[in-house]
């Protein structure tokens, strides 16, 4: 990992160096030097709201997609989404960028989802979001053609059906890879397994998805 010993006084945000005031107290931390998000998080921790807004706008969509795919329920995904960001906000004072912010964020998301499953004593099964819910969540089609909307909905439905057939461990790894764009090592860290285990789970997940989607294409 590209880590460097880092002193807070030396922080300069490449995006807006003058906009973020330097944090009050100098902290020596191991920082992933090229992670702008970590610097934004530190700037937010020192009281800069604009830093949080930037951070939020960068990750909100990916995090939301991940939670919707995992929970398969719009309302639950909304709740989990707010809970994840609440944890980000709550940990701002003791945040230390020892890994990429994205890894930190999706670790929180993964843990929030696992906590949710423990609370309800089950992981969601089946397709989850029905077509009407999915249509509400998706943005309106630009050209508004009925066939385009139908095609998109059908594709989405088959994809969600294939996802639902995956074992939870494989689905976790696959969704983290697809939605968070983390590396295998980072996914392994988030899910608490070795990199080889994560790779193996991802390989199985991708193989099953490919087979399931190919089968439904043939049936059409």
């Amino acid at each position, binding site marked *: 990992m590209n880590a460097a010993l880092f002193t807070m006084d030396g922080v300069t945000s490449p995006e807006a160096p003058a906009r973020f005031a330097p944090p009050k107290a100098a902290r020596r931390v191991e920082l992933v030097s090229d992670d702008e998000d970590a610097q934004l998080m530190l700037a*937010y921790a020192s*009281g*800069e*709201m604009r830093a*949080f*807004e930037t951070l*939020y706008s960068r990750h*909100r*969509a990916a995090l*939301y*997609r991940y939670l*919707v795919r995992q929970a398969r329920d719009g309302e639950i995904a*909304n709740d989990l*989404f*707010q809970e994840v*960001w*609440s944890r980000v*906000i*709550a940990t*701002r*004072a003791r945040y230390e960028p020892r890994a990429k912010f994205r890894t930190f964020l999706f670790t929180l998301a993964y843990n929030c989802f696992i906590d949710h499953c423990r609370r309800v004593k089950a992981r969601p099964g089946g397709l989850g979001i029905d077509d009407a819910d999915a249509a509400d*969540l*998706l*943005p309106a089609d630009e050209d508004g053609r009925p066939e385009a909307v139908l095609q*998109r909905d059908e*594709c*989405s439905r088959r*994809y969600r059906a294939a996802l639902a057939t995956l074992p939870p461990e494989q689905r976790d790894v696959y969704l983290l*890879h*697809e939605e968070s*764009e983390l590396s*295998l090592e980072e996914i392994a860290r988030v899910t608490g397994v070795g990199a080889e285990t994560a*790779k193996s789970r*991802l*390989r199985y997940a*991708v193989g099953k*998805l*490919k087979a399931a*989607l*190919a089968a439904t294409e043939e049936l059409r």
Partner: protein
Amino acid sequence: MSGPEEEFDDFLSRRKPLFRRPVDDLQPPEEVDRVVLRRAREAIQLDRPQRAFRGANWGAPLAIAATLLAVFTVVLHFMQPKQAIPEVTVQQVAQPVEETGTAAAPAWRGDSQSWLAQIEKLRAEGRNAEADAELAAYKREHRALAVGPDR
């Protein structure tokens, strides 16, 4: 020709998709965005030191003590019984003056003859002012006499 291993490596490095997946652009609702941003803003506002006015630590006790002292003083002032001012009569004032005058009177004022003899003596000695004062006193003492002895 690419085998399954190479396909998977391409997938891992995001060079080539293995299957068609929906291109959906799921976004969190605007209300959720507002809630998250409001929480973030409120959290850092709580971190900032409150700039409410705070007086010195000794201010409150001092103010209480001063107030109690003022109240106590006013209450004592009104609770103290008013002493009646005695009326001073002319007689009460005149009496000590006369008592003082008689007390200081020389012996020769005891009888008229001695007093007049003293007056004559003072004139003979040329102490006319004193003789006049003694004569005036003699006249005040003996108001029945219309005329002084020198007339």
